[in-house]
């Protein structure tokens, strides 16, 4: 039991570090693309509350949303939001990483307007069923 608790504590710290690193890498790439003119809009990723009904076996207790905000200065159309979401969801490696790091919701928002789009990540990746004792 002590061993389990100890490993859970280590995992928590490791996951936290990996989560921050992933968000930082995304933001760095987005910033570089915007500065170099590759991307016309600045994208920014951050961790949000998420949707509790989207939980899966890897989900964190809190802050399970991966939110991407597009700084366009105008209200993004639904198609634009969906396209950015589809690009993320079609990258299987990224979705798998997001899932194992405890995120269960992907949210895309603009910086203007009050609406956005969100998807549950487990719909876009085949998650194997693990037993209760994690064997």
């Amino acid at each position: 039991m002590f061993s389990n608790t100890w490993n859970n504590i280590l995992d928590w710290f490791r996951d936290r570090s990996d989560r921050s690193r992933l968000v930082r890498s995304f933001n760095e790439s987005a910033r570089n693309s915007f500065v170099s003119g590759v991307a016309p809009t600045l994208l920014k990723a951050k961790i949000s509350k998420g949707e509790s009904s989207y939980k899966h076996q890897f989900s964190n207790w809190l802050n399970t949303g991966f939110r991407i905000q597009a700084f366009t200065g105008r209200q993004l159309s639904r198609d634009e939001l969906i396209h950015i979401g589809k690009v993320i969801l079609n990258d299987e490696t990224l979705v798998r990483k997001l899932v194992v790091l405890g995120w269960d919701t992907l949210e895309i928002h603009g910086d203007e307007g009050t609406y956005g789009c969100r998807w549950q990540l487990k719909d876009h990746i085949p998650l194997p069923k693990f037993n209760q004792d994690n064997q």
Partner: protein
Amino acid sequence: MKDTLIQDSLKVAEQAISASSDKGDSTNIWMWVAIGEFAIIVGLLLAKKLKRKSNAKQRFKEEALSQDVDFNNIIKSSFHSTELYDILKVKCHPDRFPTDPELNGIADKLFQEITKNKTNHKRLEELKIEAEQKLNINF
């Protein structure tokens, strides 16, 4: 006589104490070395004992985390993949090669691959080069 004896015995005791305290310093060093070694051994044993046995969930997680994500491609795809896809789907459509069955087959495969990767800019760029070489398309 008795006083002299007492004084002598005190001197001897003093010498003995000073000698033992000199020796004590070196003993102390070795004692700390031994304690250090013991702590290292205990630490290694504990680390071995506490190390989690790899299970299916753990393996799934490690495998997912070991892969690299191309964020630059994701950002680029978010804004430029639709444009490239629209060009490719028109230029590489199999219906544009109705007379040559070989070219039609190649175009069919390319078109399927293009549709599959419509949101992956990097892959679409590769397919564009492939189309230029195999189908002699001028973009």
